């Protein structure tokens, strides 16, 4: 279980994370959803020992992150937002160095296995510089999985990938949720949070504004959206709790009214008045 308690981090006058508290149950895929600058990466950096919080606590499986960083590092894997592979080393060398740093035993077998999971085994002896963005993201994931950590952090795992490759990445991420592994994802992609996460925390300006399953979040604000253009050409959206309410509203509306199911972007707009993307 992961507990985040009253976590705060500021950079100068900017509050990147502002009194953040939530709990993540073991074995779930937990998503932190929000626009750029919402505080998602800063939160992940504090949970993975890269950034020291100003105040508050992070506890992973009963161990305090600030008080016992070495113990935490033995239990977590992290895929950062940016590619931090050694570009001039091969895929195998990257995993080998990482495995040594994390005391991985039966190294060769586990590297082979990790590379096969992400479909890069046939490129194991290629220099990383020649890899596409998608291949580099997959290799980062293989590297994080190598020590078989019980907790895995993925910071924007499919950022910059085209839709088809992104879906492949999602399939691999779903597979990582084995043996009770807890997976924490940050994303600003609505579809990614909806497709992968058991629970979603919505962040805005460093604060948690909602936390629930994707379905419950949508139910809370309304499962259906009625959209139409007003006289000024501005898109108007009305949230409705059910299909009947949506059709009733649409009947009284003007031409060009559409009804669709709500998504997490609608939840974010309803709660903050702003858009994620």
């Amino acid at each position, binding site marked *: 279980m992961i507990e985040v308690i009253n976590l705060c981090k500021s950079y100068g006058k900017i509050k990147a994370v502002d009194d953040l508290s939530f709990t993540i149950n073991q074995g779930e895929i937990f998503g932190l959803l929000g626009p750029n600058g919402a505080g998602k990466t800063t939160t992940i950096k504090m949970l993975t020992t*890269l950034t020291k919080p100003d105040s508050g606590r992070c506890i992973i499986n009963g161990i305090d992150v600030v008080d016992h960083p070495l113990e935490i*590092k033995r239990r*977590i894997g992290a895929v*950062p937002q*940016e590619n*931090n592979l050694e570009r001039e080393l091969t895929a195998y060398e990257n995993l080998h160095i990482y495995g040594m740093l994390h005391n991985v035993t039966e190294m060769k077998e586990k590297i082979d296995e990790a590379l096969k999971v992400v479909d890069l085994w046939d490129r194991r002896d290629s220099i990383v510089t020649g890899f596409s963005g998608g291949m580099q993201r997959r290799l980062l994931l293989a590297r994080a999985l190598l020590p078989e950590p019980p907790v895995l952090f993925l910071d924007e795992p499919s950022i910059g990938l085209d839709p088809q490759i992104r879906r492949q990445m999602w399939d691999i991420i779903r597979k990582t949720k084995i043996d009770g592994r807890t997976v924490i994802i940050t994303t600003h992609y609505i579809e990614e949070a909806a497709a992968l996460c058991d629970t979603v925390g919505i962040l805005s300006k460093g604060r948690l504004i909602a936390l629930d399953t994707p379905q419950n979040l949508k139910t809370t604000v309304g499962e259906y959206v009625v959209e139409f253009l007003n006289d000024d050409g501005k898109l108007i959206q009305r949230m409705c709790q059910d299909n009947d309410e949506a059709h009733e509203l649409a009947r009284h509306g003007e031409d060009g009214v559409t009804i669709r199911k709500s998504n997490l972007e609608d939840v974010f707009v309803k709660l903050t008045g702003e858009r994620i993307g």
Partner: protein
Amino acid sequence: MRNSLAWYPIFLKEMLLFRRKLLRLGYVFSAMIMPIIYLGAFGWGLGRSVRIQGTDYLSFLIPGLVAMSSMNNSYSWVANALNLSRLYFKTFQVFIQAPISPSAIMIGEVLAGMVKGLFASLLIIIIGLFISSAHFITPLFVITLLLNCFLFANLGVITGMRAKSHEDTATYTNFFIMPMAFFSGTFFPVDKVPLFVKPIIYILPLTHTNIVIRKSSLDYEGLISLLVLVVYALLLFAYGSRLIRRYSE
């Protein structure tokens, strides 16, 4: 892996990268070019006509160039590589997130810097053996060379950790490394400098390296300089480890 060997993956990574760099001729030439220019300009230019400390100038100059070259390369490669990996490539964060101690990271980085410094020094030593008849390689020479590489690789880690941008590393180099290269007894004995400058000269660690590296056996002056280098090295190692321990983004 045992705790005592926790530094090894960091060292290994640097050596794998270094091996690839060695395959590019440009790297080898860049390590050699400045000392060769100095050898040509000062050594051959002044070597035949000037005698210093009872020996010809070339024999005086070569150990100094070895000291300078070991300083430059141990320092620069660590400072630049660490700074780039910390600020731009973010590969340093892999070490920070690994379950190893800050001193293990420090040892790995410093040993890698020493290898690069020793490699550059070896090129100068080989050239020196060809062009000079002096027997400058003594056990004290080797110990001093290793200590100098260690000391400046530590300083490289500190610069790599403290510099706020890659351009910033040049500021550190211009303030600390460049003056040392020219005023610490590489090209002329420090007793030739004006009296009021001497206290500053004797603060610089390369001055003490140049004193010891030219001695055939350890006398009182050499012992003091050796101790100064050891104290500097330990202090810099402790400070570098502290910077890594307190790392936070």
